């Protein structure tokens, strides 16, 4: 396989793995809180980030495996790529849907451009699903931004920024079919979003 393709897949998988690890750290922290306090809010945060982290992790592993066997079993690899993308979509919609439910509930209380394009198309990013996820993330961003505006605390601002970055990343994923470099931008924004969440967690822990 061409080195450009390998580098692109490596970037894709690495970004997703790092994002998934950060999501799982957030989920673990929320789980500690749920265990200690039995708070539903922490349960929703735990479930949401667990599902998101698992989805990203599974997608990264399946993508890496599918691409490694694509030359010997093309149809199976393509099916695997579609399945991994479907799993990721399902996990993202479920995760952000859970988070949205928590808010609603609380308120009622490019070296080889062709290769990335092929991979991006094989990955089957669906603009409609990306738009749905971006819309959900926009809703969460508005909720967190209003909280950040009133509390003006650094952790709230970081969470708000993370959901803005995640929302933007899905808008760029949506553009992947028409503008290939957006795939790289989307992954970078997604990782930056998760990095903001990690920074928030470190700030919250350092406060003690």
């Amino acid at each position, binding site marked *: 396989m061409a080195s450009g393709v390998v580098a692109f897949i490596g970037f894709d998988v690495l970004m997703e793995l790092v994002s998934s690890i950060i999501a799982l750290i957030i989920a673990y*922290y929320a789980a500690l809180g749920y265990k200690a306090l039995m*708070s539903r*809010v922490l349960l929703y945060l735990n479930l949401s980030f667990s599902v998101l982290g698992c989805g990203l992790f599974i997608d990264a592993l399946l993508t890496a495996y599918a691409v490694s066997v694509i030359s010997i079993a093309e149809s199976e690899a393509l099916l695997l790529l579609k399945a991994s993308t479907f799993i990721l979509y399902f996990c993202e919609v479920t995760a952000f849907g859970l988070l949205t439910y928590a808010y609603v509930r609380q308120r009622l*209380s490019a070296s080889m451009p062709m290769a990335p394009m092929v991979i991006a198309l094989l990955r089957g990013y669906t603009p409609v699903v990306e738009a749905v996820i971006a819309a959900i993330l926009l809703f969460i961003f508005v909720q*967190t931004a*209003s909280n950040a505006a009133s509390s003006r605390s650094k*952790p*709230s601002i970081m*969470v708000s920024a993370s959901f803005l970055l995640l929302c933007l990343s899905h808008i760029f994923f949506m553009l992947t079919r028409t503008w290939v470099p957006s795939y790289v931008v989307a992954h970078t924004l997604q990782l930056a979003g998760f990095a903001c969440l990690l920074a928030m967690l470190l700030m919250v822990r350092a406060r*003690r």
Partner: protein
Amino acid sequence: MSSRYRSRIRIITDILAVIRDHGGRARPTKIMYMANLSYERLQKYLSDMLSMELIVEERGGYEGDREVVYYVITDKGLKFLDEVERFKAFAEAFGLEL
């Protein structure tokens, strides 16, 4: 005090904070007023908190013909307050309340 909805954890935290701030033990009437709870709700929460071992009941003699009852915060109760503080900031960063 705000008329906003208080979650179960918020009410338990308020009760524990009242007891802690009164030297570790308080009478039910004091808790009732300071935590802004009706008698019935207070009794329900105190009963739950006793079973969770966050507080213990202590009998402290008589006032006239009535036995005086105090509620004393336990180590588990103090730890619970610490945990609430720890995770409150985390939930609040998401704009959510415990």
